[in-house]
């Protein structure tokens, strides 16, 4: 094992890898810190670069981008009450309220420490959990994989969205898009309409760049707010006071970390769900619930730890089962496939070096987050001053080049535009976009495991519950389906009683 760790450290010490990690740090802090630009968009635009990198630098960059971007999302949340990423939304009101009271620097300092702490907790669980779960996952059959994929998609449709029915539409749309192209069983062309560009299916990268990049450019241009007013940082040091604050709320930090880890391991639930859940738990047990939304420091610590501990834990189902936790880890699967690494239980044995390098990167990045995070806080006013009317055309051009770069085909640029317009139209009408990407990635696994299970069981659906783990996963999936109906049933009962 020591050999593998040393080899992985050597691969990370490569100048290219160090340069990539540093660039990803700045890129993640910049995009995460820009209000309205999401980390998912950042990673979508990064994928074409990943195409030209070796697996270790590509994955190290993704880990860095994710951690730095999610932390930096707290900056515009605190200074202009506009979360940089959905994961920061849960405690934006509290952060902003405290900033208005002249504590912006302290709040952001607490965000850095909480994020780094959460990230380290997640990294430890990833290291321990992935290997343990991989051994267990080797015994999985098509039934378990079917339920696991369906559980992930059901969670993202029914729990991770404001409107379950619209979440369901997004998932079905993604699944439908995954069926386009040549079918693997008979080599039959499905929904290609004779277009040779669609034989290989809907290309994942242009689709994602369109859904997250072009649609975001359209939204920001349409909003027209190119310069933003922001709260000023107070003078003084923030490192030691931030450490002191997190220490004062250490039990909240621990509880937030556990909540984040649980949501992270659950397929289909991303960092935003982790943060919201931690917010709810914190409010439930707080001695000062009246402060929530008006400047509660304890919720900033608890939810801030939760969203970053969720990030590393999300990699467990992603690596071990090939089931991503959110749109971000869906991209990780895309990159793994692009590099010829098939996620699944065997990945831990087949590519141990690469995985250990990922583990080390997680620890390294969360340690690096402290100095870089505090530097980003100092630079935050400059960051928010970057005019968006200069940035948006550049992002559009990067989208065009990124979509084109994978296959050197203008058809992909057209596909990107169509998906961008689709994403814009859907989001403008309250349909979530992230489940589309998740379903596009999970579609082939879901269909394949469903068809194999159906043929094995000769159409007997009870056999889908015949194995213990499959039965548990199947029951969990059914619970996720029933959950959205509970408020509806309560409402009906209340109406009847009235």
């Amino acid at each position: 094992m020591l050999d593998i760790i040393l080899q992985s450290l050597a691969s990370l010490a490569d100048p290219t890898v160090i340069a990539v990690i540093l660039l990803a740090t700045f890129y993640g802090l910049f995009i995460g810190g820009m209000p309205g630009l999401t980390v998912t968009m950042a990673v979508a635009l990064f994928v074409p670069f990943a195409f030209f990198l070796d697996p270790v630098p590509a994955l190290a960059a993704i880990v860095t981008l994710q951690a730095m971007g999610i932390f930096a999302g707290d900056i515009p949340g605190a200074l202009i009450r506009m979360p940089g990423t959905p994961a920061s939304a849960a405690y934006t009101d509290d952060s902003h309220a405290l900033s208005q009271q002249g504590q912006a620097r302290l709040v952001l300092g607490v965000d850095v420490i909480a994020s780094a702490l959460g990230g380290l907790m997640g990294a430890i669980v990833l290291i321990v959990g992935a290997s343990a779960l991989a051994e267990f996952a080797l015994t999985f059959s098509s039934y378990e994989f079917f339920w696991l994929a369906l559980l992930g998609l059901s969670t993202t449709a029914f729990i991770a969205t404001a409107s379950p029915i619209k979440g369901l539409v997004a998932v079905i749309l993604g699944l439908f898009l995954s069926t386009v192209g040549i079918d693997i069983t008979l080599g039959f062309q499905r929904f290609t309409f004779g277009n040779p560009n669609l034989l290989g299916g809907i290309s994942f990268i242009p689709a994602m760049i369109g859904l997250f990049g072009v649609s975001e450019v359209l939204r920001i241009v349409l909003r027209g707010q190119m310069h933003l007013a922001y709260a000023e940082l107070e003078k003084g040091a923030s490192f030691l006071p931030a450490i002191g604050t997190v220490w004062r709320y250490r039990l909240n930090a621990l509880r937030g970390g556990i909540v984040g880890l649980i949501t992270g391991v659950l397929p289909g639930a991303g960092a935003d769900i982790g943060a919201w859940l931690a917010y709810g738990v914190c409010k439930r047990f707080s001695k000062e619930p009246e402060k929530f939304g008006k400047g509660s420091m304890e919720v900033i610590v608890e939810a801030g730890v939760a969203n970053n501990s969720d990030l590393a834990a999300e990699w467990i189902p992603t690596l071990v089962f090939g089931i991503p936790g959110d749109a971000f880890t869906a991209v990780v699967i895309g990159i793994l496939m692009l590099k010829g690494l098939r996620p699944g239980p065997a990945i831990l044995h087949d590519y141990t070096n690469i995985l250990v390098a990922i583990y080390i990167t997680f620890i390294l990045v969360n340690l690096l987050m402290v100095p870089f995070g505090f530097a980003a806080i100092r630079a935050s006013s400059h960051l928010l001053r970057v005019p968006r009317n200069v940035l948006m055309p550049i992002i559009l051009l990067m989208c065009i080049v990124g979509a084109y770069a994978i296959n050197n085909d203008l058809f992909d640029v057209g596909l990107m535009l169509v998906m961008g317009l689709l994403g814009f139209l859907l989001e403008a009408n309250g349909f979530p976009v992230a489940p589309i990407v998740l379903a596009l990635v999970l579609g082939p696994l879901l269909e394949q495991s469903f068809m194999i299970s159906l043929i094995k069981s000769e159409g007997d659906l009870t056999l889908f519950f015949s194995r213990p783990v499959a039965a548990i996963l199947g029951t969990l999936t059914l619970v996720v389906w029933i959950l959205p109906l509970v408020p509806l049933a309560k409402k009906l009962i209340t109406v009847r009683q009235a």
Partner: protein
Amino acid sequence: MGTWDVLLGSIIAIAGACIFLEARTFPNLAGGYPGPGLFPQLLGVLFVLSGLGVAGNAVVKRAWAWKPPLSDHPSREKINALLVVLAVIFYILLADTLGFIPMAIIILIALMFRTGVSLRWSIVLGIGLTLAIYIFFNRILHVPLPSGILKYWL
């Protein structure tokens, strides 16, 4: 959002019906086992049900307030958004003929100027950023960006 939900829900339901009918024409596996059509057929049915759900939900909530699309946004911003779409279409149609560099310069200058950057800065940034992106992608990452009218110089 109500009226749009009724409209979008209906479109989703109709699209689902079309997917279902198209997938029914797909062949089965030998021995009568379901083939490549089964999964899309199920998705078609789910599309119909969820589309009806979206439309039905809006009807139940009696959300009839009709708002023309994008009516909350000023017309200048709507034209800017339209320009973003046209810029991509323009690129797809003319990139092979004109090449990446002229196309990118035109797109950057037009969009920056239109969204409030001064003409001088739009030109400086448009040319500078295009060259930076070209050098990075074409010379460093070796992405063969269309050279178009500049093919003898690049």
